[in-house]
């Protein structure tokens, strides 16, 4: 029983070191890094409790110190991830507006591209071919309309002259 009591510092050191190493591995995996702070704190507590006990009984403190250092580093990594995730989550509120702006920009670009599009349709049916060329250019349409109007106007004029 006494022997078991005397080994408490060492046992706490082993527990702290194992927990600290597991915490370290968890902390560098982003998916679970955020919750690694919990075993990190447990490891720090275990090492902190074990250190004075080991000092009182003149036991080796190497494992306890190693556990404490690894646990502190792992907890810091985990804390940094909490900080980063928190910042990203705060910015995430602004994302819907940004996404809407991006969608609007894309829509505008598509409409602009469609305005300048040239469309050709070719239909083959039983040896007969029908080919339609058209342009969605507003400027081209306006020009064509003006030309047509000009021709008609001349025709009208000529008719009026005949009369």
């Amino acid at each position, binding site marked *: 029983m006494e022997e078991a009591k005397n080994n408490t510092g060492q046992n706490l050191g*082993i527990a702290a070191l194992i927990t600290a190493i597991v915490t370290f591995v968890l902390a560098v*995996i982003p998916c679970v890094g955020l919750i690694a702070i919990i075993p990190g704190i447990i490891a720090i507590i275990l090492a902190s409790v074990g250190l004075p006990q080991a000092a009182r009984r003149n036991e080796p403190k190497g494992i306890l110190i190693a556990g404490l250092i690894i646990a502190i580093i792992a907890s810091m990594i985990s804390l940094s991830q909490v900080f980063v995730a928190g910042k990203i989550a705060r910015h995430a509120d602004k994302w819907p507006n940004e996404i809407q702006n991006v969608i609007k920009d894309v829509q505008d670009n598509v409409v602009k591209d469609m305005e300048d599009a040239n469309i050709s349709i070719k239909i083959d049916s039983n040896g007969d071919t029908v080919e339609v060329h058209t342009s969605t250019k507003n400027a081209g349409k306006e020009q064509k309309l003006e030309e047509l109007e000009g021709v008609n106007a001349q025709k009208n004029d000529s008719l009026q002259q005949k009369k």
Partner: protein
Amino acid sequence: MPRRMIVYSKKSEPLKRVFLKLGDEPYHIINIVFAGVIVMILAYSGIFSPEKNNYPVVCIHERLTGQPCFSCGLSHSFSLIVRGRIQEAYKWNQYGMRVFLFFVSQLLFRIDFLRLSIKHPDNRRQLIIYDSIGSGLIFLISFWPFIAGIIKGFLQVL
């Protein structure tokens, strides 16, 4: 009050000695615990299948931020590697293989270092130093994409 006595036969004595040796040394306990943890990770990958998609561990980062992280799909990747579907595993997470190899190498390390530590107790200190350096290097190589990602993310946020 009668004392309870545990009688060991002559056959079980070497086994008892082995257990006593294992329990005496903290390094042995640490090796056994880590080997157990890695076996549990491999069992987790084997039990949960990518087809059923019944993994209990979810990405907390994605839940909080809505963005997938570097380690998303790691469980799927491990399960597929265990089942020998390496190509699919790469699709789920491109770093899955190197992390999986880290765990497998650590399992072999734990078993081998435990054996060496029992066989050569006088060189234990040297063994622990070699183990720490080797495992640390393998850890850095295997997890470097995640570590670099964390550093990059932290610097971007700052």
